[in-house]
């Protein structure tokens, strides 16, 4: 039975833990800290170039453009100093650019994959080529960014794309049994047109709920209990705070793009079937001839491995590789083991193809 004196002595510790817990939930961590400069803007999109830290003669000749999803901040690629993919690649001598899609407003509700892949990306790439002085470039697409980069690479293969990296790419929607999102957005249950007619853009809160509801107990309960248990571990706290800051930064997805994601991809798998039309033209994956690295997260519940495994036979690339890594959708790039597995593999693969 606990003594009164022991409880009194424990109270300050408990109180301190409560205050730390509250601070972590109510403040933002400093993320996206690697120095960069803004080199181009269009509407809400911004192209950043990260300040090189390696001497010009030691840098890779071919610049690298990072493209993330449409409904989350790309700062996940530059989460915190000392544990940032961007910082790592800049340190390895790459000329790194990042395309931030920004937050769509009501005026952007009709933006589709067509606009992102054939208007925004070519213009950003054009600027990158001018700034970097290299006509050839590498593209890294993660999550929805992988869909956009795949479409771009298939439709504009002559623009100078040399290397294409796809991370947790949701490309193949044929195995509906493994895709919970496909079940939720089935046309019998989910009226996407009514939803978009009401809101214009797909609300960020609904996207956030959808991704968290795949593992509700982990995301809404265990996540916070794990934090409480590790409040005495400064590294764990810092890591949690940074990730939480990124997760909480939600915003809408352009309605047109969301509709394409649901109707063309989740319901009809048009990209893999060769039926996806972008600006009236069929997306032919055989025209994608860039060197290709597909990174699959074996524990990914958002984009199961089956969605990325079948891309290789579909494309025209002769130099193509699948790299499987243990981890989740975000964890393979932002988790504690990323710097030991995913990042070095990307560097090794890309470095050999960036001269």
């Amino acid at each position, binding site marked *: 039975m*606990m*003594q009164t*004196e*022991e*409880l009194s*002595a*424990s109270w300050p*510790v*408990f109180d301190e833990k409560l205050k730390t817990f509250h601070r972590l939930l109510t403040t933002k961590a400093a993320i996206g800290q690697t*120095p*960069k*400069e*803004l*080199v*181009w*803007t*269009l*509407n809400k999109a911004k192209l*950043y*170039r990260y*300040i090189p830290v390696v001497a010009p003669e030691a840098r890779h000749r071919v610049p690298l453009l990072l493209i993330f999803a449409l409904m989350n901040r790309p700062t996940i690629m530059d989460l915190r100093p000392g544990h940032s993919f961007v910082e790592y690649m800049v340190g390895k001598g790459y000329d790194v650019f990042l395309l931030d899609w920004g937050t769509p*407003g*009501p*005026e952007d509700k009709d933006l589709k994959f067509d606009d992102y892949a054939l*208007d925004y990306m070519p*213009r950003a790439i*054009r*600027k990158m080529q*001018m*700034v970097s002085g290299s006509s050839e470039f590498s593209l890294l697409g993660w999550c929805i960014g992988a869909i956009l980069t795949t479409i771009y690479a298939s439709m504009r293969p002559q623009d100078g794309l040399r290397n294409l990296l796809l991370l947790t790419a949701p490309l193949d929607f044929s195995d509906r049994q493994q895709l*919970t999102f496909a*079940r*939720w957005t*089935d046309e*019998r*249950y*989910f*009226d996407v047109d*009514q*939803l978009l007619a*009401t809101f214009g853009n797909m609300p960020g809160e609904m996207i956030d709920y959808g991704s968290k*509801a*795949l*593992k*509700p*107990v*982990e995301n809404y*309960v*265990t996540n916070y*209990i794990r934090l409480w*248990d590790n409040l005495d571990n400064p590294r764990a706290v810092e890591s949690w705070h940074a990730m939480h800051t990124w997760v909480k930064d939600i915003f809408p997805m352009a309605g047109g793009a969301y509709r394409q994601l649901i109707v063309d991809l989740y319901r009809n798998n048009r990209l893999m079937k060769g039926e996806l039309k972008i600006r009236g033209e069929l997306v032919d994956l055989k025209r994608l001839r860039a060197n290709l690295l597909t990174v699959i997260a074996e524990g990914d519940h958002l984009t199961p491995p089956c969605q990325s495994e079948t891309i290789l036979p579909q494309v025209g690339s002769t130099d193509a590789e699948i790299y499987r890594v243990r981890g989740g959708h975000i964890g393979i790039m932002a988790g504690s083991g990323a710097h030991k597995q995913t990042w070095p593999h990307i560097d090794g693969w890309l470095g050999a193809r960036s001269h």
Partner: protein
Amino acid sequence: MAADNGTSAPVDPFESFRALRDVYLENMSKVMINAVNSEEYAQVTGAMLNSSLTLSAPFREALDKAMLAALQQLSIPSRQQVVNLAEQLTNLEMRLDDMDAKLDRIAALFSATRSPVAEASPPVSRPSAAAAKSSRRAGARKV
């Protein structure tokens, strides 16, 4: 519980329940993952969403009409008018970006052809071009 040196170690009131808590959460997690993966869950959540959108539609339409009428009376632009203006601005921005790219190409061509000429004649200063370039929205800004 007092330590041997006589001082009290901090007591975690949840320590005795931690193992039980973790087992409970693990089992609940599996139950909930199975539940959200079911057709019934998809059906119910879809029905709830569709119902709420359908039921709220008349109120939203009435509110939109009333708001539009009020804004017109006050000579204040409506949301749709602002959206239209924003779309026009984006189109204008695209055209400016294309012009910017053409200027870059011209500047690059000019630099490439200028080198042998520069040795024979003094350099031509282009303050207006430089000033325009530095004030251009797409100019590099450290962040």
